[in-house]
């Protein structure tokens, strides 16, 4: 082969493996799922074309809306707290005169590195109503047992706590990097103007961190609406469906062999998640401009 030809062909050869894998395990199943979402199919026999029935079924099904409702509540319990607390911790950590910073950083990221399934199991044990660590500690200070995983009131906050515990370190790292990119002369000028630290935080740090904050908002919105392993391992969606998140409800279609509905559910979820991501980024931008 001539040298020129080789140089021309090289980039195509280099990117080819990705496109082969994507075609086989991305584009093809995606197209297949789209077709599947218009059929009734239980995994065996012929798939029957039923048009938009799966979509109308879901959109009028109380269970579908309940799963979205559960995920929305989870979102409310997780995302605002994580963004505010994460930013607060990142601001404290960004102080150049802080000692032990490396140690704090390790402590905050360690949960992010632990396997979710392992920690989900630890959560079952720690929050057990009868024998768990948390109720044991509550009893010691004279408080009654709480049904952390067995009452509909507490099941969502308990799972949200697992999510927060596991991923807030990630948020802190992203925000810390964002803070370090804020030029220091901005703060020097504000100091000269006599602006208080709290005022600097709200009127300068938050706007300047717009990019990192919107990134986290989108990533965590996606993650919360796809939340699966936490309820799957810890509560199996219970009690009384209170932790059946959008992700777990989708999985239930597989166990029920209702694959057409499952495919339709996937697409509704994707549309929703895209819309939410766009909306949150919009809102965050609009407020500051």
């Amino acid at each position, binding site marked *: 082969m001539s040298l020129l030809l080789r140089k021309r062909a090289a980039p195509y050869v280099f990117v080819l493996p990705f496109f082969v894998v994507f075609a086989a395990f*991305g584009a093809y199943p995606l197209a297949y799922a789209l077709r*599947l979402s218009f059929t009734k199919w239980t995994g065996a026999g012929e798939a029957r074309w039923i048009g938009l029935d799966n979509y109308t079924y879901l959109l009028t099904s109380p269970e579908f809306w309940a799963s979205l409702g559960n995920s929305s509540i989870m979102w409310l319990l997780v995302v605002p707290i994580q963004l505010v607390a994460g930013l607060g911790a990142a601001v404290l950590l960004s102080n150049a*005169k802080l000692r032990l910073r490396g140690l704090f950083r390790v402590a905050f990221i360690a949960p*992010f590195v*632990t396997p979710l399934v*392992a920690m989900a199991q630890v959560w079952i044990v720690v929050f057990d109503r009868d024998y768990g660590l948390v109720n044991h500690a509550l009893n010691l200070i004279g408080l009654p047992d709480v049904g952390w995983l067995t009452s509909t009131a507490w099941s969502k906050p308990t799972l949200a706590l697992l999510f927060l515990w596991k991923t807030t370190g990630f948020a802190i790292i992203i925000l810390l990097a964002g803070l370090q990119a804020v030029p220091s002369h901005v703060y020097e000028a504000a100091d000269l103007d006599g602006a208080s630290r709290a005022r600097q935080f709200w009127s300068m740090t938050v706007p300047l961190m717009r990019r990192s904050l919107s990134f986290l908002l989108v990533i965590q919105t996606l993650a919360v609406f796809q939340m699966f392993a936490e309820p799957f391992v810890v509560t199996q969606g219970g009690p009384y469906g209170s932790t059946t998140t959008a992700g777990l409800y989708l999985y239930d279609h597989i166990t029920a062999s209702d694959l057409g509905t499952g495919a339709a559910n996937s697409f509704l979820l994707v549309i929703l998640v895209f819309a939410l991501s766009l909306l949150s980024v919009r809102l965050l931008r609009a407020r500051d401009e």
Partner: protein
Amino acid sequence: MNDKRPSLPTYALLGVLALLFLYPIWWAISSSLKPAAEIISDPLGFSLADVTLDGYRAMFADVPIGTGFANTALVLVIKGGMTLFFCPLAGYAFAKYKFPGKDLLFGIVLLTLMLPTLVLIIPLLLEMSALGWVNTYKALILPGSIDAFSIFWMRQVIAAIPDELLDAGRVDGAGEFGVFRRIVVPVIRPGLAGLAVLTMMNVYNDFVWPVVAVNDEKHQTLQVVLSTLAQNISGNRIGADFATVWSELLAASSIAMIPLLVVFVLLQRHFINGILAGSVKG
């Protein structure tokens, strides 16, 4: 920033927060080393004198955790190897070559970045069963083995290499792949280390796809093996048996988290680089 010396409350706040983050990990590992009955009777206590490996012995006897580790290791090596080889290669093509169709192809890479894994689970499962790949290593390894995010990241890293360096390599007579192997790879080593560590974490902790794709004991990854322990709990809530189940569960969970925690503490910088690389795509 022109920082003031941090005040005592700052340290107290960060210290309490750090303890809250570390405590569940410490509690799981320390409780896994306690006699089973004490996990329930005295969950807060821990004494070195009582340390026992009974929970681990029982767990190894009951659960195929060794198989789980071996399967995860196999998937990790092959899938990780594919990511580490093919993603920088594709990133190199997108960063340093001009070729017809490049924008379109890179656009597809960017689009797939936004594709939630959840949407693919059902059709992928059907594809696997049509191919007869359910309960095979192929099913665990191939989907997602060359991913858009890693390509995107490596493209950023490689774009920073000066073109003169690559041209110098060509003058020396290296072929197209030779330039990649002999010049690009050595220069981007820190980026590759970050990619390796992040890929390792993702593959090791991956759960949704393995739990769907594999249901026989022989092919279960570590996370899938772990999840079967939780299912044992609900059916077993009486007396000493109950404490033993908990003890096994904590032993399995602890042994599963230790390898990554060790790697994390040793390779902290690469981990953080890996996590941060994620934020550039925002």
